């Protein structure tokens, strides 16, 4: 890779200042996309601003956002940290399962939530959770809805120098993420996140198209009838999908339906398990 100036700021303001002063600056989080890209000389920033020293971008907490409890995750949270966090497991368990399925152990120990979301790789897992769970993306300048954030392949609403600092997830009623992983990289050939949320059923699709998107046809069908068979006749248009050596657009479209059905089946199973638990609690109360 070409050489560069290295900075390690300790605050968000300092990081943004260093970025603004650099000729061609770049923020460094986990580096698992940026460093390989620099090694291939596809990217050659004059200045790297290493965010790892910024405490304000770390940590996983529960916050009260009005009446609603939100899960607040610092942009620098590594995938393994999200996967193993007791707060994440109790509030948004689908997110810990998703994070635990990214890449391999080495990737999960370095890659970060903010890095993945800001990079907006078409096959990344996290964008499905951000869009599917209707998360808020907080930057050094503003707060953005997930709908506004993802613009296209490797393209987000972040302006030049704008820094994603944390992501806030509302707690879904129930959710599941199922992906068909590329067997070598574990990137999502297709990944579907289905969630029952305060504003209805949401279905987010990653891996299939240039960027994560919501499958309106699936959402409508599941709103009418939340069952696996409700999706039997729904096939998303392959015309908008990616086609490469791993899978054709038509195969990806087919996988979207299959993965969505598996996610719905997982949620139905969760609901049934919860109902059984409630029934047994009621029964044990009435018999005691």
């Amino acid at each position, binding site marked *: 890779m070409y050489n560069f100036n290295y900075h390690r700021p300790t605050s968000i303001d300092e990081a943004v200042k260093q970025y603004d002063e650099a000729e061609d600056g770049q923020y460094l989080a986990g*580096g698992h996309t940026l*460093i390989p890209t620099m090694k291939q000389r596809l990217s050659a920033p004059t200045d790297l601003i290493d965010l790892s020293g910024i405490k304000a971008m770390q940590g996983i907490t529960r916050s009260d956002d009005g009446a609603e409890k939100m899960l607040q995750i610092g942009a620098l949270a590594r995938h393994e940290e999200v996967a193993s966090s007791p707060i994440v497991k109790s509030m948004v368990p689908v997110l810990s399962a998703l994070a635990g399925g990214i890449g391999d152990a080495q990737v999960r120990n370095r890659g970060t939530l903010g890095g993945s979301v800001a990079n907006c790789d078409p096959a990344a897992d996290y964008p499905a959770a951000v869009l599917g769970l209707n998360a808020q993306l907080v930057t050094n300048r503003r707060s953005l809805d997930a709908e506004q954030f993802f613009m296209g392949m490797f393209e987000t609403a972040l302006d030049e120098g704008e820094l994603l600092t944390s992501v806030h997830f509302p707690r879904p009623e129930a959710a599941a993420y199922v992906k068909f992983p590329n067997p070598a990289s574990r990137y999502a050939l297709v990944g579907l996140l289905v969630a029952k949320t305060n504003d209805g059923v949401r279905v987010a699709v990653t891996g299939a198209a240039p960027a994560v998107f919501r499958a309106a046809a699936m959402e409508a069908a599941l709103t009418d009838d939340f069952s696996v068979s409700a999706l039997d006749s729904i096939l998303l248009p392959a015309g908008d999908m990616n086609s490469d050596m791993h899978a054709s657009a038509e195969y990806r479209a087919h996988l979207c339906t299959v993965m969505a059905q598996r996610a719905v089946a997982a949620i139905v199973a969760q609901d049934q398990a919860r109902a059984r638990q409630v029934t047994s609690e009621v029964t044990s109360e009435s018999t005691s």
Partner: protein
Amino acid sequence: MSKTHVTTSINASLHEFLCEPGDTLLDVLRNELQLTGTKEGCGTGDCGACSVTLNGRLVCACLVLAVEVEGMEVGTIEGIGQSDSLDVIQEKFLEHAALQCGICTPGLIVSTKALLDENPDPTEAEARYYLAGNLCRCTGYDKIIRAVMDAAATLGGAKEGV
């Protein structure tokens, strides 16, 4: 662009070195510190040949900048066993012939140690999942997994005996 001075702990001993910002941890380990046990495979974080631990967490040294390890603890294959007294994991790799060309072996042993430190009694599925980031192109996975499971059993047995 001047060189940066980095102080770090490698295999529990203090090291200081000078590096360019663009040097990776792997570059410094192999070329500056002569710790050549850690191998370079793909250089892009896919193969796991350069696996080391950073503050106890398994990472690819090829994707960590050397400047990033200031103040951190690095663990390499040189910190696991000695040539006259091998670690149990190394003994089991030999016993099960879990290597052919050997280029993936240091990374696999570092990863296995990280696995067993986190999860001393893994199922075979857990072991395979944890080691998924370490590629062996001689395709000796079956023997590797046998060695890993045997090492776990032996270490578990040793712990019960204490």
